[in-house]
């Protein structure tokens, strides 16, 4: 018996250690930099059974459309089965792939952010898509059970149709190759309390800002920060929101302080990071910029959601604490006051909301702008910039050549003009392709309402053209899509100057780009908190140094 127990114990202990013994199996194949290897594709489209796994993080409720596209694709290529599974969240998804790489357990393709792909590329696990994009091979579909029997499919992809910034983002990796393509994209727009602006028409016009009789600002030309400051003079009441004078306690909320730091750095041409993973924030322009932001904080021109202990400012925008709010296009509807809100909280009632581009410092790229920092004027060269973000899709190189080929075809199918438009409309993301904006593919939004992306965009245009005085019936479905349509239009107007956040994995000297973004957010929050506590005597460089310490070692 003693022996038996001993044996068991040994087994138990062995188990406890089992985890430690297999570390050596991680085979690392050194990444030989393959120079433009031209891909040799099969003569015929492979007709073997192919199983493709696609990993994402969408919940069951969001995968319906994806399932539909998969079904369509499988009908086109009956020998292909696509299994898409959710891996619960982005961190888990990334970790599973990172670990899976060492044991050859990666999906055929996966959703991911650029910094995820940067990590996979380091492990030499992702497929370089250039070989497919530039491939001229064409296949005729000879399988009679295919839904596209007799048609010809091309392998190559016309990149000209994509938003430039998305292309740059997906080819920012070493060698400038494409390792992923854009899928679910969003940007930031600014929500505006039209009722409040309307109450100050003359003053606003006197400040040289274009505004319609009903209080709508321009939807093509972004406000400049100079104009923001002017609006603050007119609208902000530092004593709190005052409904009789139509003034708000704060002018502008910025939901994502991380985005704000990064985007404003671009607008000021202040170095931030680069794809090599260098942290460049320790420079005079960034310091001036933070000083300027501090001034905006000081006179309530700018606020962060932490002002109300919130993660997003949309609620306080609805409540009237702040009259403008920059937030993600995906969160549009959180800004609209409705019957569902506790009405006493809505200080301006159910006011009209409009969406405009995020503020810029200059009207055109390369212009100079002058800001007053601590009473002295300084001049900088500005850029136009709006944040673009959202996951992309890549294919893993461990798959068989047939799997890779079909995975590529599937990826291409997902980002076809019409599918992109459908995906965008269903999810609230933005189309990755320019042609999607004029797509006429019918999209069933409800059982009884079907539209296409072009018509969808038209909803907001009609509304704006009528200066808000449309004669739609209250039951008109267009009301349901008005605000999504607005931000889609604004996003379109911004897409020429989208900027992406350079992606890099954590390295020997510094943290990864995801951490950098988080720390950038903390930096601004620290300045906000510090300024609230000690006014102008707070030195924003303290926060900058903290950030630098967190990111470099």
């Amino acid at each position, binding site marked *: *018996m*003693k022996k038996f*127990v*001993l044996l*068991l*114990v040994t087994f*138990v*202990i062995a*188990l*406890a250690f*089992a*985890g*430690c*013994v*297999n*570390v050596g*199996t*991680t085979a690392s194949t050194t990444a030989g930099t393959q120079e433009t290897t031209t891909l040799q594709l099969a003569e015929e489209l492979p007709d073997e059974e192919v*199983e493709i*796994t696609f990993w994402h*993080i969408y*919940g*069951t*409720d*969001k995968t*319906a459309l994806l*399932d*539909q596209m998969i*079904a369509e694709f499988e009908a086109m290529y009956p020998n292909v089965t696509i299994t898409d*599974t*959710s*891996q*619960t*969240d982005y961190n*888990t998804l990334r*970790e*599973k792939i990172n*670990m*899976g790489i060492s*044991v050859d*357990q*990666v*999906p055929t393709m996966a959703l991911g952010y650029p910094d995820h792909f940067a990590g996979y590329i380091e492990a030499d696990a992702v497929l370089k898509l250039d070989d497919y994009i530039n491939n001229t091979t064409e296949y005729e579909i000879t399988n009679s059970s295919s839904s596209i029997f007799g048609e010809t499919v091309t392998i190559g992809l016309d990149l000209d149709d994509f938003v430039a910034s998305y292309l740059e983002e997906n080819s920012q990796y070493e060698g400038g190759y494409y390792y992923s393509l854009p899928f*679910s994209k*969003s940007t930031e727009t600014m929500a505006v309390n039209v009722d409040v602006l309307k109450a100050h028409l003359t003053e606003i016009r006197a400040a040289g800002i274009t505004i319609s009789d009903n209080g709508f600002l321009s939807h093509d030309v972004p406000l400049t920060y100079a104009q923001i400051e002017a609006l603050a003079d007119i609208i902000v009441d530092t004593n709190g929101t005052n409904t009789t004078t139509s003034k708000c306690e704060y002018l502008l909320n910025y939901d994502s302080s991380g985005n704000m730091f990064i985007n404003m750095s671009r607008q000021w041409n202040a170095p931030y990071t680069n794809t090599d993973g260098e942290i460049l924030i320790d420079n005079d322009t960034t310091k001036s910029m933070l000083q300027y932001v501090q001034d905006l904080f000081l006179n309530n021109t700018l606020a962060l959601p932490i002002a*109300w202990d919130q993660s*997003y400012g949309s609620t*306080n925008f609805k*409540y009237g604490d702040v009259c403008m709010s920059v937030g*993600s296009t*995906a*969160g549009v509807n*959180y800004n609209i006051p*409705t019957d*569902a*809100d*506790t009405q006493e*909280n809505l200080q301006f009632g159910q006011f009209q909301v409009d969406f405009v581009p995020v503020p810029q410092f200059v009207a055109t790229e390369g212009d100079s702008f002058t800001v007053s920092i601590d009473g002295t004027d300084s001049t900088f060269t500005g850029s136009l910039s709006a944040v673009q973000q959202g996951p992309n899709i890549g294919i893993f190189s461990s798959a068989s050549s047939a799997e890779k080929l079909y995975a590529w075809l599937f990826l291409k199918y997902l980002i076809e003009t019409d599918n992109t438009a459908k995906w965008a409309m269903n999810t*609230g*993301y933005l189309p990755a392709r320019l042609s999607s904006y004029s797509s006429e593919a019918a999209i069933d939004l409800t059982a009884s309402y079907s539209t296409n992306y072009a018509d969808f965009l038209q909803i907001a245009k009609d509304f704006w053209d009528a200066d808000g005085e449309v004669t739609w019936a209250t039951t008109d479905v267009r009301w349901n899509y008005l605000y999504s349509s607005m931000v889609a239009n604004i996003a379109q107007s911004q897409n020429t100057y989208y900027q992406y956040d350079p992606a890099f994995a954590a390295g020997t000297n510094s943290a990864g780009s995801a951490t950098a973004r988080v720390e950038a957010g903390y930096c601004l929050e620290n300045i906000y908190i510090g300024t609230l506590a000690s006014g102008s005597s707070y030195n924003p460089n303290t926060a900058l140094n903290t950030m630098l310490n967190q990111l470099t070692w």
Partner: protein
Amino acid sequence: MAEIFVENEKAYKRRRLISNIVTFGFLSLVAIGILIPFYWMILTSLKSIQEIESVPPILWLNFSDWKITNYTDLFLTVQSGERAGEPLFPFFTYMKNTVLISFLTTLGTIITTILAAFAFARLNFKGKDTLFAVLLATMMVPGEIFILTNFLTINQFGWYDILTQTYTEAVLAMTIPFMISVFYVFYLRQTFRKIPDELYFAAKVDGTSDFKYLLKIMIPIAMPTIVTIIILNSMGAWSAYIWPAMVTTQDKYRLVSNGLRGAFTDTTGRTDYGQQMAAATLVTVPLIILFFTFRKQIMRGVGRSGIKG
């Protein structure tokens, strides 16, 4: 004399009263502190998004304002497409998995813990102390490191194949690496060591084998500790998140914890707290029922002394 006695008794009673008020006051505060999160969870689960965001927060909801759909929506099914008929939030699947995983992990843990603790407390073998020291040292290794090594092990055992993983393999992958806990071994060993040698000798004289002694004497005596371990371990398994997500390839193999976190976020990353809390409430209810069912057993153990002597 009698007067003084009465005086004293009065003073005594007054002191008793004050001490009671203080004690029960304190306990009530603690109890409220514990109950508030539960109340808040249930309250939130009955609010609409707007009510949740409301500032100042809404502390009480009339029955007519309850948003029951937070609960009913959990049981909605996908209307069309490939997954038609599947629940949006596969509550029962998650629940079944969670119960199974918690049960198996706890069962495994308790078996290995008891055997290992017994060996370290009772048996004599070469290198016992060294081995125990090594085991204890592993407690200092951060858990994250084991994720990688365990992941590789699971893969070697063939339980993590993203194309072919079966339910059994997923269950094995989720449970086996957590069927041993050095801390629990240590904890139980301490309890076992408090059991006097004489009991072992007595049992020997009374004709038991080592194993029977463990079963009939040590385990019953150490029951409070074992119950504690069972509770702690099941709670840990119940709320495990990272590992189950890491080693399962399909949603239907996962646990409530995974479902709770992922399912209710929209495209902006914002969470529908109402629904999430409704689901959380449904998950918590079984735990509460379990606690009240086994309240006596759980409470008892703690005060039981070892042996008189």
